């Protein structure tokens, strides 16, 4: 199955993807989580739909426990939807074999913890794993791809550093580089800005914007950073308690009443000079 779509992963990458075609299609996806099948589910995700093209950044926004991460896991294919489907270039993501999935979808999670430390370049090389066979030793090609991935996130100088001896922002870049080394079609990020200072946050989003347009990745990002998203995302999906309330451009979704109701806070929304909305928290409701 995987061979049909992208033989060897590398060859097909060089073919330009038409910008008009939909790459990721989330179709009426729902999910229910219950620790015990006989009980009522603790958490339900109601039918959620949106589509994304190559080069687009989609942000999933919402308060805690709104189902953002669940949507991301459904897209990643690690959870099987209760109904509906997530299609990536026409294939349902959760039915793809693990390896084929890792060749198409890269996930950047909140800080990964290492049991035994490794150097940054070794860590990035792990991204080549989906393309290797058992007992495989990395080829020169793998090394070039890893080096390029580090260069793309501006972290070549970190190559020989140990992963546990670099700053949070630097580590986040190396983790992103590993995802790039997977040469994915779809780049998923789960709260990547969580432990970053504001400068590093802007750097990361700036980098993602550039990578998305250069490499034609489709990027889906889960985050709490309303204003960063407003500046960098093409589409926003706003979620609350397992429901997707609205999908659209930041300007279309950032309505004051809607955001206030979702985030339970007094907000003001203004249009910035760039035409992008800007959210300010006025005060906390008691």
């Amino acid at each position: 199955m995987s061979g049909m779509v992208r033989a060897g992963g590398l060859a097909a990458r060089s073919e330009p993807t038409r910008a008009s075609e939909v790459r990721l299609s989330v179709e009426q996806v729902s999910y229910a989580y219950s620790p015990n099948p006989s009980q009522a589910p603790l958490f339900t995700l109601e039918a959620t739909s949106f589509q994304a093209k190559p080069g687009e950044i989609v942000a999933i926004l919402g308060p805690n426990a709104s189902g953002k991460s669940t949507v991301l896991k459904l897209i990643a294919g690690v959870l099987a939807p209760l109904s509906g489907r997530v299609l990536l270039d026409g294939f349902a993501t959760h039915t793809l074999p693990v390896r084929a999935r890792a060749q198409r979808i890269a996930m950047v999670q909140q800080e990964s913890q290492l049991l035994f430390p490794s150097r940054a370049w070794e860590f990035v090389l792990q991204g080549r794993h989906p393309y290797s066979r058992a007992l495989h030793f990395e080829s020169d090609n793998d090394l070039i791809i890893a080096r390029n991935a580090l260069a793309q996130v501006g972290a070549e100088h970190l190559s020989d550093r140990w992963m546990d001896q670099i700053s949070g922002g630097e580590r986040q870049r190396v983790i992103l580089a590993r995802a790039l080394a997977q040469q994915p079609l779809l780049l998923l990020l789960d709260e990547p800005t969580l432990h970053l200072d504001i400068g590093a946050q802007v750097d990361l989003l700036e980098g993602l914007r550039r990578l998305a347009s250069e490499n034609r990745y489709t990027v889906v990002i889960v985050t709490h950073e309303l204003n960063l998203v407003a500046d960098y995302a093409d589409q926003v999906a706003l979620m609350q308690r397992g429901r997707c309330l609205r999908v659209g451009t930041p300007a279309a979704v950032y309505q004051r009443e809607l955001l206030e109701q979702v985030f339970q806070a007094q907000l003001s929304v203004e249009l910035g000079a760039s035409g992008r909305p800007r959210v300010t928290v006025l005060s906390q409701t008691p």
Partner: protein
Amino acid sequence: MRSLTLGRVAMRCALLGAVLFVVIVIALKLGAVPVSLYALARALVRVAIYQTSELPSDYRLIIFDIRLPRILLAVFVGASLSVAGTSFQALLRNPLADPYVLGVSSGAGLGAILAQVAESHLALPSAVAVLLTPLGAFVGALATIVAVYFLGRREGLVDSNTLLLGGVITASFLSALIMFLLDTVVGRDLHGTAFWLMGDLSTTQQPIVSWIVRFGFFLAAAAIYTTASDLNLLLAGEKEAMHLGVDVRRVRIVVYVAASLLTGLAVSVSGAIGYVGLLVPHAMRWLFGSDHRMLIPTAAFGGAIAVVIADTLARTVVAPTELPVGAISALAGAPFFIYLLRRRLA
């Protein structure tokens, strides 16, 4: 950036192989009857060129019929325990994991004793009867690691501390069962308590059993080696490994079955030798890095070297009597375990 190549792995293995050879030669020399290095070299050369008939008969008896089989057994027991420990540490994401600490060795011991009890009640043909003890040990080891794994799981994730406690408790429970069985059902005639609880290589094994241990080692170690790069990714957690294309369930099954086979076979011929599977992988990681494509073969050599040395000490330091080899490994391993534990808590 200098990535790992097959050549570099082979180089390190050749180096460790040479060290192992030297250690074996020294171990052959040492013992109750002194043998000069010159005589030993002459004997080895004669064996190498198939002139065994020219060997003095007392030499042949001491070196080739008594010391060499025991040393070879030590080689494979050490390699087995060390590879099992290496893979447990990666799969359970716990630097303190080891077949002995996790209770897997005790489970194997209990399985082996139960198999021996069953064997004495079933009138089996001897060819089958010989296989029963290793099989029992394997089943005992597998059942224990599965039980400990589930004991250590909390909300779907392996919790390091719970796992370790679960293993320690399981080990002491199973050891108590072993003592009980040895005293009541079996009688102490089968093997000594020290054999099962501390590890001991002094029992002479039937040649067929030695061959099973060797064959089983190569089979199981090869199976584990096919998952080497998966284990590298598993160090970062099961979820992350899955996103990088690791079939976590398959790796878990391969490693649990293969590591149980390694532990079971080792325990069925040597009892529960502790800390080899803990100490050696860490030493190798420190020397050669934590890439499992390098670590698994070097740990095999390292384990072999460690147990041959430990067993040589066990039979020489208090000569003419012997210590159980497990006493030597525990003397070296227990302080090291405490050091690792303190460092992790720090």
